[in-house]
């Protein structure tokens, strides 16, 4: 296994089953994940996977009664999966009962079912440990997942499942979208909303049951949600979101298997005694979560980073406009020193210097040999516009919203940076182009706006 490359993961008889199997399983899980994420029921995956756990053990126990040996993997897997399916549905039904009949809130019902079922599972598991020791090892694979022992049969099972999920979602796309977005309206159109809600739950249960073989009961819900959350950061279109989530899911599946194999190999080369073995399931979940984190931080429109940059740049613009205003108010042609200007700003002198440098590059401000700053012609009309917006807003607050004249300044300080040309025009029309603000200061005329805008362009 020394010369493993990316392609051998898809061709190597031992590697290809876990690789393709995990990718298909992740594809199914992420498609379904989009549905539950938009339905705001992200926890349902967590609950269902935990509710499946006692079923897996009971199924294995039953297999033991029928004296099926640990080597007959296919039959064993079938017993485990059917058991899982049954207890998952039981869990779903219990949640429904708690909410509808006993009026338990949804989060409490979810928590109750999750912990109860998992608790029962653990209790039985500790019993099985001693009565069916060999089978217990199989049971463990469902707790944490074990992708490495998958065979080609799994590829077909997962392939068929992923295909089924995709086709169902594609065929019922319209109905699922409407059910999740506006159930009341869907009902009024005569759509069987309960049927489609049921369908979503069945899809989730299927995805979870199949998925726990790869990543285990404990981590399964991450596989549903992480790709959906990541995809949501990049798009505002539902269809694209399905597509992206599917891609993210498959990528996580592949990279999870890849990294677990390559890193295990790597550790083995450097210290053969340690027997350090990176499990596949957790690696897949880690990759998916990491992708999700990256998307939250760096997505081009909604990411934290871009929002931080926008915030900083807005603040920078505000300070710049405030400086222009200060220069204008203290005498438009009178030069001001840096410390004069700093007295009116709540920012450090260094930051102010940077802002002034930027304003000089825009040719709004010039510096004379003594180190004082004064407005250029274009800076002057920019400053006038800001003052105009400030005073217009004050008039608006006093005349239309009945705010006391003494309390309008603060709001206007903010809005002078916000108001667009359209809003300015609307305000001007609404207020009948006033000449004085509530403090009897003159409002610079609208004409300056055109001068400054033509200067800027």
């Amino acid at each position: 296994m020394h010369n493993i490359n990316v392609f051998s993961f898809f061709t190597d008889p031992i590697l290809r089953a876990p690789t393709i199997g995990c990718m298909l399983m992740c594809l199914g899980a992420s498609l379904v994940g989009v549905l539950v994420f938009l339905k705001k029921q992200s926890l349902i995956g967590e609950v269902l996977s935990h509710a499946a756990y006692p079923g897996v053990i009971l199924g294995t126990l039953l297999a033991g009664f029928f004296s099926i040996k640990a080597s007959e993997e296919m039959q064993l897997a079938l017993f485990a999966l059917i058991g899982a399916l049954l207890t998952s549905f039981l869990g779903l039904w219990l949640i429904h009962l708690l909410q509808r009949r006993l009026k338990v809130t949804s989060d409490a019902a979810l928590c109750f079912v999750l912990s109860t079922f998992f608790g029962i599972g653990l209790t039985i598991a500790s019993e099985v440990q001693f009565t069916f020791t060999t089978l217990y090892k199989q049971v463990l694979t469902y707790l944490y997942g074990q992708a490495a022992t998958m065979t080609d049969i799994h590829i077909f099972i997962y392939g068929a499942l992923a295909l089924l999920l995709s086709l169902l979602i594609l065929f019922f796309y319209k109905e699922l979208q409407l059910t999740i977005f506006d159930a009341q309206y869907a009902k009024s159109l005569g759509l069987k909303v309960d049927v489609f809600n049921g369908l979503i739950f069945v899809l989730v249960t299927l995805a979870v049951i199949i998925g726990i073989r790869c990543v285990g009961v404990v981590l399964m819900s991450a596989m549903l949600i992480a790709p959906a959350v990541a995809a949501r950061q990049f798009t505002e279109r539902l269809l694209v979101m399905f597509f992206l989530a599917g891609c993210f899911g498959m990528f996580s599946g592949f990279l999870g298997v890849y990294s677990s194999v390559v890193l295990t190999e790597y550790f083995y080369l450097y210290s053969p005694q340690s027997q350090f073995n990176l499990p596949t399931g957790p690696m897949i979940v880690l990759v998916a979560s990491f992708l999700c984190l990256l998307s939250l931080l760096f997505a081009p429109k909604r990411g934290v980073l871009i929002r931080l940059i926008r915030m900083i740049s807005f603040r920078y613009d505000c300070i710049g406009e405030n400086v222009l205003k200060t220069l204008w108010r203290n005498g438009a042609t009178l030069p001001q020193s840096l410390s004069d200007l700093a007295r009116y700003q709540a920012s450090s002198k260094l930051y102010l210097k940077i802002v002034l440098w930027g304003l000089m590059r825009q040719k709004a401000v010039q510096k004379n040999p003594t180190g004082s700053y004064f407005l250029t012609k274009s800076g002057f009309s920019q400053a006038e516009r800001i003052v105009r917006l400030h005073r217009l807003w004050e008039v608006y607050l006093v005349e239309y919203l009945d705010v006391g004249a003494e309390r309008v300044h603060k709001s206007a300080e903010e809005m002078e940076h916000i108001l667009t040309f359209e809003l300015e025009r609307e305000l001007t029309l609404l207020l009948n182009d006033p000449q004085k603000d509530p403090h009897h200061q003159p409002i610079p005329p609208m004409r300056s706006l055109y001068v400054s805008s033509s200067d800027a362009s």
Partner: protein
Amino acid sequence: MAQKEKQANAFALSVHQLSVNYDKTPVLWDLSFEVPKGKLVGIIGPNGAGKSTLMKAILGLISPLSGKVEFIGEPIAKVRQKIAYVPQKESVDWQFPITVQELVIMGCYGRLGIGRRPSLLDWQAALNYLDLLGMAAYAKRQINELSGGQQQRIFIARSLMQEADVYLMDEPFAGIDKASETVIIQLLKKMRDQGKTIFVVHHDLNSVKNYFDWALILNMRLIGCGPVEHVFQNENLAKAYGKNYALFDEAFKKSEQKNAGIVC
């Protein structure tokens, strides 16, 4: 043919002895009324009077305890495509990843049925209805970029997409700007003139006389239903909103708590 005739002569909506309970507490008591076609109907009453509940009950979204509801002489299941519902705009998540036009096109999902996609003509129709409400420029925008008034407008565009005969709108004028309100009420009046019947849950008593030609005053039971100038009277309003109602309200709350086992 007989059916057509029956529909032609029928009331737009007739409700017979409708009662609705939430759990064991009554919300609507024994409502019976009829509304002829071609009316713009204001459903008026104080908070908690059951106005939205009435709408949901006659649409079959919640099942009533008893009573019979007929639209155009037929039970709702038979004429669903002719009835368009506009839910409260707060009832949906506006962060949902769809565009304005995609929301409006939902209006034809009922007609299309399962497994069929809207055609190019449908998309064009959606655009036309958006245009009617002054929202054509927003067709490709995300729904999360809209203001309250704009959200309401596209909700109404979606209901127009159904090309229905009866429209049921739950508080379309709540929390929206004046301009949107004007656009909407003018459109509703035009639709009424074309023979459509429109029910509107409404809060602002000042505008009732200007907006509606039929009023339905409600406070858990029916207080009045008829032409605005007959029904929208101080006497009825006092019954719906007045102080003499406080006693009833208190007794009612007690009964609610007792039924739920909160007090003994």
